[in-house]
């Protein structure tokens, strides 16, 4: 079933994305155009097929690597905050969350 404009509103809210009304309308048409392509994929019989996440796992086990839980990084706070929109005394500033 094609997406409705109410779906676009819901998905945009989930994605934390504001869409202007004309953008929303255009998005609806374009997404439905894309999901027409997806129907062939949905029809494929995948019973018993394991999902593939790391592609090289197609030929053997790939274990996600863990490293020892030890602090290894030097202090780089200033460099890390250099491109932040709002910083004060080494803290990232955001709008007030709790009234």
């Amino acid at each position, binding site marked *: 079933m094609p997406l409705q404009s109410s779906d676009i509103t819901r998905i945009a809210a*989930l994605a934390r994305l*504001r869409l202007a009304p004309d953008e929303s309308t255009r998005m609806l048409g374009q997404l439905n155009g894309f999901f027409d392509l997806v129907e*062939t994929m*949905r029809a*494929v019989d995948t019973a018993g*097929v394991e999902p593939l996440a790391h*592609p*090289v796992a197609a030929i053997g086990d790939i274990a996600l690597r863990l490293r020892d839980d030890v602090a290894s990084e030097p202090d780089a706070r200033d460099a890390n905050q250099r491109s932040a929109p709002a910083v004060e005394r080494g803290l990232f500033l955001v709008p007030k969350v709790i009234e």
Partner: protein
Amino acid sequence: MSDLQKTSELHSMGVAGLAAALAAREVSAVEAARHFLARIHAGEALGAFVAVDDEATLAQARAADARIAAGDAPALAGVPIAHKDIFVTTDFPTTAGSRMLAGYRSPFDATVVRRLAEAGTVTLGKLSCDEFAMGSANENVAVPAAGQDRAVPVRNPWDRDRIPGGSSGGSAAAVAARLAPAATGTDTGGSIRQPASFCGITGIKPTYGRASRYGMVAFASSLDQAGPMARSAEDCALLLSAMCGPDPDRDSTSLDRPAEDFSRTLGDSLDGLRIGVPAEFLGDGVAPGVRAAVDAALAEYERLGAKRVAVTLPRTELSIPVYYILAAAEASSNLSRFDGVKFGHRAAQYKDLADMYARTREEGFGDEVKRRIMIGTYVLSHGYYDAYYLQAQKVRRLIADDFQQAFAQCDVIAGPVAPTVAWKLGEHGDDPVADYLADIFTLPASLAGLPGLSVPVGTGEHGMPVGLQLIGNYFGEARLLNAAHRFQQATDWHTRAPQGI
């Protein structure tokens, strides 16, 4: 070498030639850097670069000259290259082509950038790309090109009314126009191979996990791979050898596979090489000029001793929906970090925190990025995850299995990189699906995580370049580069320059 010869020849030299001339002190790293910087400034109309800083480049070049003088220079000391603006760099800004990151300065270098610097290369600047590497035409750029006051699409040096391909379009255009001997690129669904094909250069994407993704602005983490783009396979081999290697502390998906010298087997014979040609890659959708160039290349390979074998990749068309579901899902997750708090753009006006996120992202992201975030958010959302995301991951395995069946009958797989030559700027208009469909031949190897290469093999419609795609089995990069190198020893397509260059 006289000064006159130096300047007239430097930009037609590749990585191998420049490395040799630098080591022999026929040219200094500063002279080489100045030469290419002058060409970059003169070639600004192409829109290939988004960040150039002569002083930063010359400082790196002086350091390279000092090491050469001291006699402890690494193999590529003083060789100038440029980086796709997806790799974070401390010496240059990094934007990923997005307003979201305009002016961003990374506190660290990407592992690939660091490895290439350790090999001695000098950075000429940062190259334009589609925003967050999402695009096939390098038209989705939101940051100004170097020397221009606005964002512009990159132009193809072979015909400036045409696109260079994408998303590594700036990389391909710069190398084709001799603004840089080589460049880095990234390939998620074809973003190295397709622009290499459209601009008549050579480019390779290694096996997923070979090159570290640390410091590559993330688009789709299970697909993104870095690779070199240069004029010859020999140059790509030199750069790829420096780029690849395990990065266990920084990239959890990096494979524990030692660095390899990909130049070692470049000259091996192609006698008996079995080249599999999938029927699905030469169907009706392929432009006649592209097909003719690919057929001629396969005939050349037969003269070089290779054998042509028919294989089948029956799920080739399914790779389009599978890829655009998975890549969008991963993008929607990766791009959630752009919220106007820790780095990047923040909206000037907002009511509260949630409104700040939504407005920041509305203003910071371009149309294609928003579309993919929307698709990704939808397919990961409650009630749709199994039908879309999980189903796509299952079909992804079937596509990867198809390749293993094909490789039982052949050593490498060959076909076109794209169904057509580079199209005109704006030709696909407001129809994103037209771009998606054009990715059909590069997506299957991306989904399977296989290495893929594009080698220039002729011209098709409108005299535009055509690339042959060679796909190898896992860790088969050396074989691909060997096959491309032997082809380039027998032909001169890779040495041809666009008119006026």
